[in-house]
């Protein structure tokens, strides 16, 4: 399913089609004719590669589930659980306030709370295009001294606290796997694909 990321083109502005990949794979196996010059130099192979080498071991569903923690804009990857700004408040005080400030205004770490038509400063309200990214990032990397230790309920609670402080959701809104992907962020439409292509024009 093509989610909210669909408007962002892939490199070069062209989507990778089935045919493109098929051609690429064929060329890689033979002479690397479609590779860039640098890559082609590296692939001065004495012959075509085998179909497979048979190295590695099959990944099990359980093994994948252990590592597959990412959350996508359409909510793929969000676990069961829920939280509100109210349940986030004590957590914020304990785990976040020391670096991000009492009200999320920033401290030794970045400011997270603030809405301004100028788009400054670079807060969640001004800059973050997807609410799901908050879940993904807090879950994987926060709090800085003890990352990866928060439960799903705790992460949902902190996400709700930050979104409510930015006046993006209501104070009593419940964040869970259904509601979080439907939150429309103020910065949702601020992002455009890279249009630099080399050549004489500086962009």
């Amino acid at each position, binding site marked *: 399913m093509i989610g909210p990321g*669909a408007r962002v083109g892939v490199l070069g502005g062209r989507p990778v089609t089935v045919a493109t990949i098929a051609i690429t794979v064929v060329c890689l196996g033979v002479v690397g004719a479609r590779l860039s010059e640098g890559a082609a130099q590296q692939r001065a192979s004495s012959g075509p590669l085998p179909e497979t080498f048979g*190295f590695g071991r099959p990944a099990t569903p359980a093994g994948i589930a252990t590592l597959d923690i990412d959350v996508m804009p359409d909510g793929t990857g969000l676990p069961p659980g829920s939280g509100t700004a109210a349940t986030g408040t004590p957590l914020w005080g304990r785990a976040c306030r020391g670096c991000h400030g009492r009200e999320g205004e920033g401290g030794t770490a970045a400011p997270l709370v603030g809405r301004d038509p100028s788009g400054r400063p670079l807060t969640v309200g001004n800059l973050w295009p997807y609410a799901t990214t908050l879940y993904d990032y807090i879950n994987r990397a926060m709090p800085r001294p003890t990352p990866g230790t928060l439960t799903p309920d705790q992460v949902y609670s902190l996400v709700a606290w930050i979104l409510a402080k930015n006046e993006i959701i209501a104070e009593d809104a419940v964040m869970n796997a259904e509601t979080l992907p439907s939150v429309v962020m103020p910065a949702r439409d601020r992002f455009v694909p*890279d249009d630099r292509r080399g050549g004489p024009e500086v962009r």
Partner: protein
Amino acid sequence: MTDKPRNWRRATDARGPLTRRELLAGAAGAISAAAVAPVSGQQSVDTTRRPGRGPSEMDQRSPFVTLQRDPSATSSRTPLQDLRGTITPADLHFERHHGGVPEIDPARYELLIHGLVDRPTVFSLADLKRFPSTSRICFLECSGNLRRGGPETLPQMVCGLTSQTEWTGVMLSTLFDEVGAKPDATWFLAEGQDAAVLTRSIPMEKAFDDAMIVYAQNGDALMPGNGYPARLLLPGFEGNSSVKWLRRIELADRPFMTREETSKYTDPLGDGDTMRQFSFVMDARSIITDPAYPRVIEPGWHEIRGLAWSGRGRITRVDISTDAGTTWYPADLQAPVLPKAHVRFRYLWNWPGERSEIMSRATDDTGYVQPTWDVLREARGPRTRYHQNPITSWTVGDDGRVLFGAERLRS
């Protein structure tokens, strides 16, 4: 290298403490260490009159050589002004990380590749090393690689978040063929095993172009700060996307919109509202590394030396101006000029002893010409944060003092 600038972070004893190995070497080692101790104003020992130290397990830099990265809380910068060729010694490669440097046991290391693939697979480090290997020399540069600073700014401070390495590993396309990448996969997620569990979404086109998973740096194992035991390498792309300590790759039909590609590593544009996203490629750039601050030069012949590079391909020319950009002359480029690689340029200059301003300007094989600060700001607006590659300059006073041309980068 003996005259350290005033803003050098650490006072260094030119000799340094004896290492354990020197101590273990016993009397011969002690004599050797004493023999090389430079004492100001005293005649040095005649090295032809006594044997030097014997062979050792691992050599160390001469005690007369002091090379240091410049560390901050989140990064450390390569001493560009002290290096001569194009390859960065592994222990001086710049570092930038988001959750510290993890210590990973190579025997326990695993890389999972899953998502839109026919055969989700876990590879050990030994598995990765069994695949056909390839080596490539290319630069790696952080997209946040500009400090404007004041006149007393070293090349290392200006743009020391770029380094060059001969990397060795396996082509990512080989691994994607092995696991059977599905045709509808258009992006892949790369995830690190550091405390930031750093993630970036990368277009599949890059995987089938020149992306690699590397496990060797200048022939040796990767340094811990550069992803030991294995990292992604995306030649020409901003350094952040070459995810270190790589533990997982997931193929998908859309980007994942991670924190590092939304609220970070995106470029505010001139309209004050929109942000450029997935701006991977590093545009052409150059810097004169000598003469540069803190040098004081004599009138007469000097070789202006520096580095130029482009994430899009080869550097085709570097032009030098010694009159503040009024006239430009082509510099010599040291062969081989590799694509997506630092190239060394040189230009012989007879400094007349008058106040001068020297600068370099790189052009790559797409026809892109390194812009001035003003041109860059005109194109991007005042808030541009990443991918800043302006022409930089050094002023030479009539007293020979070389200072960074910080005024050129004022808004």
